[in-house]
């Protein structure tokens, strides 16, 4: 088999090269096709459908008391978007999600990072048991996790409340300003272990000779953690943050389940709840149009947030 050298390949004519470019293009696309086809059916067409729908509302035909027994889709232009943007409930929902994003996400990431650092600090051996148990909540479906916590928050049943009462404390996890914190705790409980694993993996990938060198320079454990480990998990932290923010914007399970214990959590507590409940008809009978409009506005806001975050990240990186 003759093996042409790189230099020889480079030396070939322009025509050949464009042939290679063409082949590369073909190969690239071939690998893309399966994903793209599926993506088309599962995402692109439904999204286009949702956008199309967002210009319509359901109206009963015929008017009268009960209508004519059928619904028709009425083109309403941008009325659905107007409804979303002028809706107080929507913006309160966005506000709650924003508070969540600003407080819960960083707290969870810091907690996950701290745990990962402790486990990677060599202070304790045999961390794999801890690692598995920390991760366990991630395997519990969101609805079930929320139910468990609703019990643990309950004034009359919760062993946690009973424990607190030993110290003369009477926590009310459903009190007005506490309830969002209680909700955040469920999310934190579920996802901290997952994020911790990502960080732990990143930490374990750091070459150990770096520590060796630092130690020779006289650095202690704390300094190693701050100067070597932290900068090396930045990438992982960025990813975890971004994913958590996207997840938070779609916050749904926790408030929906906690609603049974606290009817004060309205059907439009978060934008996602508002969208699904609109689509179910428990907020307005206008159908999927307004629900799609909510989803689109949410996606736009999420996009702006994510872009801002990435931009700020980059700025901070540069400086």
């Amino acid at each position, binding site marked *: 088999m003759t093996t042409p050298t790189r230099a020889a390949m480079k030396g070939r004519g322009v025509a050949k090269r464009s042939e290679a470019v063409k082949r590369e293009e073909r190969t690239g696309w071939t690998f893309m096709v399966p994903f793209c086809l599926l993506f088309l059916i599962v995402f692109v067409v439904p999204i286009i459908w949702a956008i199309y729908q967002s210009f319509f*509302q*359901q*109206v*009963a035909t015929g*008017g*009268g*008391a*009960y*209508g004519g*027994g*059928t*619904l028709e889709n*009425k083109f309403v232009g941008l009325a659905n978007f107007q409804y979303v943007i002028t809706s107080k409930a929507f913006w309160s929902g966005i506000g709650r999600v924003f508070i969540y994003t600003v407080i819960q996400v960083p707290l969870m990431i810091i907690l996950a990072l701290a745990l990962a650092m402790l486990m990677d600090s060599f202070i304790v051996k045999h961390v794999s048991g801890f690692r598995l148990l920390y991760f366990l909540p991630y395997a519990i479906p969101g609805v079930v996790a929320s139910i468990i916590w*609703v*019990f643990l928050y*309950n*004034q*009359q*049943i919760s062993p946690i409340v009973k424990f607190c009462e030993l110290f003369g404390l009477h926590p009310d996890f459903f009190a*007005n300003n506490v309830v969002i914190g209680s909700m955040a705790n469920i999310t934190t409980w579920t996802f901290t272990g997952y994020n911790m694993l990502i960080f732990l993996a990143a930490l374990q990938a750091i070459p150990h000779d770096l520590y060796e060198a630092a130690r020779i320079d006289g650095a202690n454990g704390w300094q190693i953690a701050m100067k070597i480990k932290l900068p090396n998990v930045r990438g992982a932290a960025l990813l975890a943050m971004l994913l958590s923010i996207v997840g938070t914007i779609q916050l749904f399970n926790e408030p929906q389940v906690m*609603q*049974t*214990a*606290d*009817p*004060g959590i*309205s*059907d439009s507590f978060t934008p996602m709840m508002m969208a699904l*409940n609109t*689509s*179910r*008809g*428990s*907020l*307005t*009978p*206008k159908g999927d149009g307004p629900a799609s409009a909510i989803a689109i506005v949410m996606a736009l806001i999420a996009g702006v947030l994510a872009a801002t975050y990435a931009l700020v990240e980059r700025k901070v990186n540069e400086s």
Partner: protein
Amino acid sequence: MVSYTKRLFAGVAAIAALGMGLVGCGSSSGDSSASSNADASKDSGEVVKITYMHRLPDNEGMTTVDSIVDQWNKDHPNIQVTATKFNGNASDMIKKLETDVKSGNAPDLAQVGYAELPEVYTKGMLEDVTQYAEQYKDHFAEGPYNLMQVGGKYYGLPQDTGPLVYFYNKKAFDELGLAVPGTQEELIAAAKKAAAAGKYIMSFQADEAGNMLTGLAGASSNWYTVKDDAWVVDTDTDGSKAVAKVYQELLDSKAVATNPRWDPSFDASLQKEELVGTIGAAWEAPLLMQSIGDSGKGNWAVAQVGDWFDNDGKTGPDGGSGVAVLKGCEHGKEAMEFLDWFNTQTDALISQGLVVATSDTDVKTPDSWKEYYGGQDIMAEFVKANDNMGDFTYIPGFSAVATAMTEAASKAASGKGTVADIFAAAQTTSIDTLKDYGLSIAQ
């Protein structure tokens, strides 16, 4: 493209029929005698397939829907029914059915709450079966039978009802020296007396506000009436005023429990005998047994709701459903035939915790219930409440009204709003919802 499998099946069925030399179309009505329905379909030789979607509990110890249906299938080889249980709540089920109907894929029969029926009709999900319903009229109580009707046309048959009654812990009442209050004044006095002893004889359930409070408030006169094919909405009836007044006073004097009905804390307060009396729908009887547990066995009893809310002694509905024939059903006649049989399987349906909507008032209280409720024939009490139940007409889109009421009620429960606000919210939301639907409202 209409359901491929359904079409394919229809095709296969048609070929099979041809092979037997019997070309017959599903509901080839031509027979005049309604009584010989079964024979008529038998004659055609074609097996009719009926699908039925429900969300009955099917819990342990109950006669399951499948086993009832199996019985039918054994006796009716020509009308084969498949039941499917929907594992979700009512609003999920309606959403699912709505998409199913749109894509021509819906089951023939589906459980639909009375409060949801007008909405489901407006959404274009129902098949008019008035011509078949008429003959079964006598099998069902009149009120529920008429709840399966929209604008004079019938869309199915009723299954169960939810008359509101009063559940109370008789033993605790005796210890407190209380009897079931008869009048409004007595109720408030008794509640305050119980509260002084750390007990509640009433509960204000914010999560059930849309169902229970409408039932209580609407028993005197209807919130919604149709005049000249347009809605007249008045949620500020005498009943509403009375409900607002009574509950507000109870809330203000902290003489009412405010645990949400479906929160575990409600169960806990029942078990601790803090909550010793509550208004509830009849179908809650087995649920309460489960929630209170063995410790309350024999202590509880059922009474009629007293004349507490200026309703002339009438009670109101909370829940209850029928089974409707959905659009696209090709065998309306056979579907209704099955439905009539199914909804009159009294004992089996009672085991599911239902107060059946049949005209047959000779219904037996299951032994375990009787034992739990101190030997009382509670089914008789429910039947009595049923007969004494005011009509309530629901508007299309009532679920949105109920949502708004729940939100206002939770504010009232925590003292940030008043009970009267709940009915004000109901008024504005009702009008908004009707407008959103493009329906007429009388000025």
